[in-house]
């Protein structure tokens, strides 16, 4: 009898371990967060609040999807925050004079402003890509360098002062508009998610990102132009960060050089919590978005529970480290279960 109970207990623990290995730590964390915050605040599990969470999490989700590409290829991108800053500044500085000169050509103003801003942000990604793929600069130094450069340019252009004069329509369309009660940026994020999902799972480029990050030498011997795909990872990462920058500008209705400072860390955290390997080659875009939502959920839950924002930083930091430890544990359990 006792043997049977023991066996069943072992079976259950093995089943739990298997589940842990398959889905990672994130679903466990999400469930825990939902339970804890619902208990702390009755307002947490309301549809209005969850929509707020979704809106807040969109920007991080977009940046994290870009960050994921850099991580997949075995690097990372520390410049995503400053890409947002420079996108915001350039978008605003393009729109403001155009709006003043041609108040009735709103569509053109918005289009040009977005193109200029997103173009500028993507250009930083291009520079990152050239540095990493062509000159073999370590992603750490390369993106740290471009982050500093971008920030410097953004500050120089604005003298550190917010840029006003963006047409109201920009914020109305890209931030405050709601369709079926859901804010417009959420749709943009959903669209980008679909594109990323298809890219990573159904295109050659996506497959090659995984392969290059998993083993760059084997990829080269399989006839893949590893340089090109490394380059593209940083370009697309820059593009996604720039799109997030434009959306954030629409929300703030000003061009700011001082936004996005926490983005590099938060986006890497979202990816790692979502199961992206820091060694490259492993990660699912769905889990990355969930990782971003989780961070948004935590921040929102702590706001509702009236935990002050400085302390929130501590919690996010602790969660990140715990997620990495959990990932190590997962590797260990995986190796043990293998036999």
């Amino acid at each position, binding site marked *: 009898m006792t043997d049977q109970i023991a066996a069943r207990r072992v079976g259950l623990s093995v089943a739990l371990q298997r589940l842990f290995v398959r889905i990672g730590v994130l679903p466990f964390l999400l469930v825990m967060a939902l339970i804890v915050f619902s208990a702390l605040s009755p307002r947490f599990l309301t549809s209005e609040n969850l929509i707020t969470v979704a809106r807040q999490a969109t920007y991080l989700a977009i940046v994290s999807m870009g960050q994921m590409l850099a991580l997949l290829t075995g690097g990372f991108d520390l410049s995503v925050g400053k890409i947002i800053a420079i996108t915001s500044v350039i978008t605003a500085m393009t729109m403001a004079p155009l709006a003043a000169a041609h108040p009735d050509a709103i569509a053109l103003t918005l289009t040009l402003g977005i193109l200029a801003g997103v173009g500028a942000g993507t250009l930083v990604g291009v520079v990152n890509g050239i540095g990493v793929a062509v000159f073999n600069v370590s992603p750490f130094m390369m993106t740290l360098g471009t982050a500093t450069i971008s920030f410097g340019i953004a500050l120089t252009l604005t003298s550190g002062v917010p840029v006003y004069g963006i047409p109201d329509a920009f914020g109305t369309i890209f931030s405050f508009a709601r369709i079926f009660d859901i804010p417009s940026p959420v749709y943009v994020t959903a669209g980008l998610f679909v594109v990323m999902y298809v890219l990573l*799972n*159904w*295109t*050659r*480029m996506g*497959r*090659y990102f*995984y*392969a290059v990050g*998993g*083993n760059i*030498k*084997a*990829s*080269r*011997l*399989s*006839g*893949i*132009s590893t340089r090109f795909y490394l380059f593209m990872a940083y370009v697309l990462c820059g593009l996604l960060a720039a799109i997030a920058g434009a959306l954030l500008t629409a929300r703030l209705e000003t061009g700011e050089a001082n936004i996005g400072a926490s983005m590099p860390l938060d986006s890497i955290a979202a990816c790692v919590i979502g199961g992206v*390997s820091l*060694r490259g*080659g*492993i990660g699912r875009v769905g889990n990355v978005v969930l990782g971003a939502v989780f961070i948004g959920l935590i921040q929102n839950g702590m706001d509702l529970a009236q935990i002050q924002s400085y302390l929130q930083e501590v919690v996010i930091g602790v969660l990140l480290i715990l997620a990495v430890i959990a990932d190590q544990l997962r590797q260990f359990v995986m*190796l*043990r279960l*293998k*036999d």
Partner: protein
Amino acid sequence: MGLAATTLAPAESVGAATNAPTPVLRANALSMQFPGVLALDRVDFELRAGEVHVLFGENGAGKSTLIQILAGVYRPTEGGIEFGGKPIDLQGVHHARTLGISAVFQEFSLVPTLNVEENLFLGAEVTRHGFLDNGELHRRAEAILEELGFPLRARRPVHELTRAEQQMVEIAKAFCTRLSVLILDEPTASLTDREAERLFVMVDQAKKRGVGVVYVTHRMGEIRRIGDRITVLRDGKRVATLAVPEADDERLLQLMTGRVISQVFPKIAYLPGAPLLEISNLTTADHTVKDLSLSVRTGEVVGLAGLVGCGKSEVGRACFGLERIVSGRIAFDGRDVTGQSVRTMLDRGAFYLPPDRREEGLVMARNVRENVSLPWLGARFSHFGFLDRRAERATVRDLVGRLNLQPRNTEADLEHFSGGNQQKVLLAKGLVSRVKLFIFDEPTVGVDVGTRVAIYEFIRDLCEGGAGILLISSDLPEILHLANRTYVMYRGERRAELSGEDITQDKVLANFFERAQA
């Protein structure tokens, strides 16, 4: 199995006979259970003072595990070790070292940024009043290097040294303490033969001082050069222990693989046709290949033999644009392909299997399907950049069936497969598309006999199907039994071309080493 029984009896008599000197190290019924693998199964081993005891066996036979237990890396799950007649319980490498048991593994334990003498005394620095006594350290280091006759400068940083010199540092490190057991793990794997010869002289010196040497190798030539006794391991078990003069190559191979040679190597019907690969006067930028010419025709297996480091690997790599070429010409299928990229070569129908599957062959974190299709996504499995996953799955499933992959799961990550099955996945990469020329670089490294046979049979099928095969191998029997023509390289140059009946062990080996020895 009957084989093992007949050889075990004389093996023990060898141990007991010849005035039975006391063993310096004795392992009794060592077992090592790793999760899911019984790496060692009740292995007895005995090392006498002043002998070189060779450990022989295939990769995965348990050689590494045994020496790692003897060196204190692992603690055996069962069985015990006696040292100088007394049972000991090794707590770790450092503990073993203080007792006088030192091992030099293939992976060096040197800190590249520190210099030679700092490495020699790492963890055992000489101090005075709590401060490093660098003068004394230097004097001692110089003394040891001089005693061993190593031409090394004690203050040179280790990363500036060649691999052979680094190995000397490792060996010197072993001699820093009072040494009674020296364990060498395939020490010549990355040495030139002159360096190897120096190593052999050093091993002889160590023997004379009464040091017992455990020597792991799978090279027959070395066994005869320095060995006294051989213990053969297979599948974690000791198969036999015999004296070197008793062990001819045929017997050793049989003991190692558990099969007679005709069961391991298939008969290949060669149908040499049109020239496929023609290399003329090739010289690479780093001079690992010098003025080399060779040719491979359709329907034949051409061997490329030589010691590790003789440049044979680089010949294969040069064909795929992976080595910089300074002069010479490579033609494939009638077209000049000198310096062409891997992509071009793949598209034209040439495939290269690298020697180290984990390092260069496979993406370990991804699944079988993605690995097999990787080189061919553009050509076979995508339209306008979008993947045709259905075709991909069907093709890979078919290949996995043909290769009898175990487990037959195309969606599992490669980490879940044994070395032999990983090698099959690597092979499968070359079977997706119609390939005219295969360049195999050490195709059977680290695989079990079963996989080895499967790979050889595939080479046969490919050859008989009209493909040309260049077989680059350090495994002599492989060359002797599979190739209908073979080239032997020595220090980047082509030393000989042998064909048909002429491919004999003596003739191939004669060209492995310096002329003076041949």
